[in-house]
């Protein structure tokens, strides 16, 4: 009876562990995790890899990623700096700036260091060659505040001296207000970078501890951003960055248990592709103030899809992330605009008319949208409710162990919950897929698969929720749960395989609004298989 009460107390508790973090402890098998990891286009060469594995290529391989925290990242970086500094006989600060310039790649730095002209190399990296470093200030006065106490002036090799107070105020402004880690000399038109050790020594003491911590956060962010195979886990409070085996990696599972798409940073969204999901989420948020604002004021960078905000200024945009230059008005490359920057000739009334037409059309499609949205949301909220099952099932497993069952023998329950959560998640995203799909015979097959999976999922859910806790015939329970789980997994596999095949063979036809973009993304997705 005590146990029964514990169970009740637990069910009432709202602080349930997030699904996924628990099941990791139970060593669930790889089949439990769906991923768009790889897919293929029609060419036979690439098909080979798929057929060989047998299972859908949309699976997360949990062994493929490694994980790192910000502190470890910084420690690693210190190690690298020391190495470079001793090999190239450079001061630490210089070694650091050079390394950062070459994206923290030792190999690249070494190669370029020995083959390139040093004047150019150092100038490009925005640092001063040791031989050119000035050992005193050009002027006897701080050019920020006019302080003429020579003793207090400090320069970083370029000769531009500023007093300690002004340096600190400058760094605080850059780090706290502007969130920068790459900080230039305060002098106008001097692009020499302030190295990490200078920042650390200037921001000594408890008064600046917060600023310095912020600085190191930025430093870690910059390292992760510079690596195409690294990405912060988007789960709240997760401190890990995921290191993927290659940059085209799709779905990954973080050490914290959270599964997410390595490309777009959203949670695992199998079977849809990022672009569809992005379009969908944008649509979903349409009614909110934020999304209205986003639509009005931001556009995705045409190259890297980073969201770019502009609320004024000139139309020549350069993406801060990938440095791509484009025209805000037509989103085309900047290049052809040449010197006629003030007038984008590629923008005309007929195009704006088309945009307006599209808007009107989407209104009339509202009803259709709501049908899919409703189901999407429904599965999403079911997923939230079913997180409670983890606790309930945990209780049941303990019960069973008390009755003489082995730990291994009771794992079927938590595995069934994991399958249920996964099936729900996939179902949820199938509505996004369906929304953008044109009605073709293949689409009907997909809808049947979807209905089958839905039915199996509901059966599994119902059984686990309503019956599992009460069932006394444990052998029968195990049999039932394992069967239901197997059906569910089977349906899930079928559905994902079918979607995947469609990407490969190209039998999906998409809604006009998204079709053109989808072609590109499907190609890209298929290419990633070859890696």
């Amino acid at each position: 009876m005590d146990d029964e009460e514990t169970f009740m107390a637990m069910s009432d508790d709202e602080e349930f562990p997030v699904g996924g973090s628990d099941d990791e402890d139970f060593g669930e098998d790889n089949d439990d995790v769906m991923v768009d990891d790889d897919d293929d286009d029609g060419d036979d060469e690439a098909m080979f890899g798929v057929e060989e594995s047998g299972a859908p290529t949309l699976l997360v391989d949990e062994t493929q990623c490694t994980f790192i925290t910000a502190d470890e990242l910084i420690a690693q970086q210190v190690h690298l700096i020391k190495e470079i500094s001793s090999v190239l006989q450079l001061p630490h600060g210089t070694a650091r700036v050079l390394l950062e310039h070459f994206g923290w790649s030792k190999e690249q730095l070494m190669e370029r260091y020995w083959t390139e002209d040093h004047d150019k190399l150092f100038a490009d990296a925005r640092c001063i060659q040791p031989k050119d470093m000035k050992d005193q200030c050009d002027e006897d006065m701080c050019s920020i505040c006019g302080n003429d106490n020579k003793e207090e002036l400090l320069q970083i090799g370029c000769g531009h001296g500023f007093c300690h107070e002004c340096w600190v105020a400058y760094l605080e402004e850059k780090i706290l207000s502007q969130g920068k880690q790459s900080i230039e000399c305060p002098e106008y038109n001097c692009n020499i970078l302030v190295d990490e050790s200078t920042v650390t020594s200037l921001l000594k003491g408890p008064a600046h501890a917060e600023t310095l911590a912020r600085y190191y956060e930025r430093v870690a962010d910059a390292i992760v951003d510079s690596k195409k195979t690294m990405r912060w886990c988007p789960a709240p409070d997760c401190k890990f960055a995921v290191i993927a085996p290659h940059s085209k990696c799709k779905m990954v599972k973080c050490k914290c248990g959270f599964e997410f798409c390595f490309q777009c940073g959203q949670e695992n969204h199998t079977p849809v592709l990022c672009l569809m999901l992005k379009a969908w989420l944008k649509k979903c948020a349409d009614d909110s103030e934020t999304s209205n604002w986003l639509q009005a004021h931001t556009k995705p960078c045409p190259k890297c899809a980073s969201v770019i905000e502009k609320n004024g200024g000139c139309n020549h945009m350069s993406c801060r992330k990938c440095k791509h230059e484009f025209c805000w008005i037509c989103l085309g490359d900047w290049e052809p605009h040449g010197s006629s920057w003030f007038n984008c000739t590629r923008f005309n009334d007929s195009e704006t008319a088309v945009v307006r037409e599209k808007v009107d059309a989407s209104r009339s499609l509202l009803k259709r949208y709501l049908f899919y949205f409703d189901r999407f949301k429904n599965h999403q909220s079911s997923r939230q409710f079913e997180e409670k099952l983890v606790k309930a099932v945990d209780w049941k497993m303990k019960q069973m162990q008390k009755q003489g069952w082995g730990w291994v023998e009771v794992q079927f329950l938590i595995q069934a919950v994991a399958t249920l959560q996964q099936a729900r998640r996939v179902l949820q995203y199938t509505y996004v897929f369906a929304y953008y799909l044109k009605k073709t015979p293949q689409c009907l097959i997909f809808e049947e698969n979807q209905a089958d999976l839905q039915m199996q999922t509901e059966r599994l859910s119902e059984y686990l929720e309503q019956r599992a806790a009460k069932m006394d015939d444990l052998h029968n329970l195990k049999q039932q749960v394992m069967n239901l789980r197997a059906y569910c997994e089977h349906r899930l596999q079928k559905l994902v395989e079918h979607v995947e095949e469609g990407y490969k063979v190209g039998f999906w036809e998409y809604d006009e609004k998204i079709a053109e973009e989808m072609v590109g993304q499907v190609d890209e997705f298929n290419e990633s298989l070859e890696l």
Partner: protein
Amino acid sequence: MATKRRLKTEHAQFKKTPPEGVTLLTDDPTSTRWIVQIAGAPNTVYAGETFQLQLSFSDKYPFSPPEVIFLDNPPQHPHVYKNGHICLSILYQEWSPALTASSVCVSILSMLSSVSKKEWPIDNDSYMARWRISRHGPQKTLWDFHDDTV
């Protein structure tokens, strides 16, 4: 206070040796809002015209840039919006604390001098429409700059 000290020094310097075509109209050396008159340079499309700039200094000055806008009738220029906001990199991202109010005014004057045709920015209307709602100062705008020659 570093800001006050620096503004006082700058004010004295500005009054004593104003750059050509630039006059500081504010007499109070303790003011954090200066009005500066600039005269269109001869042989440019703005020759003979004068404009007024307002420079507002926050207590973070000179570590953050002054807010600089044209008052009343701003010059018709592809980098100046009708509300007086100016698209000039040194007023925002490219600001350096080693720059001064006087050097900013010189830059603005040379920006005016470098065009051969009076035009409003291409996105003036949309910028103004948004500004009428938000009433944000120019520093709230995320500017993108492209042309170092203007």
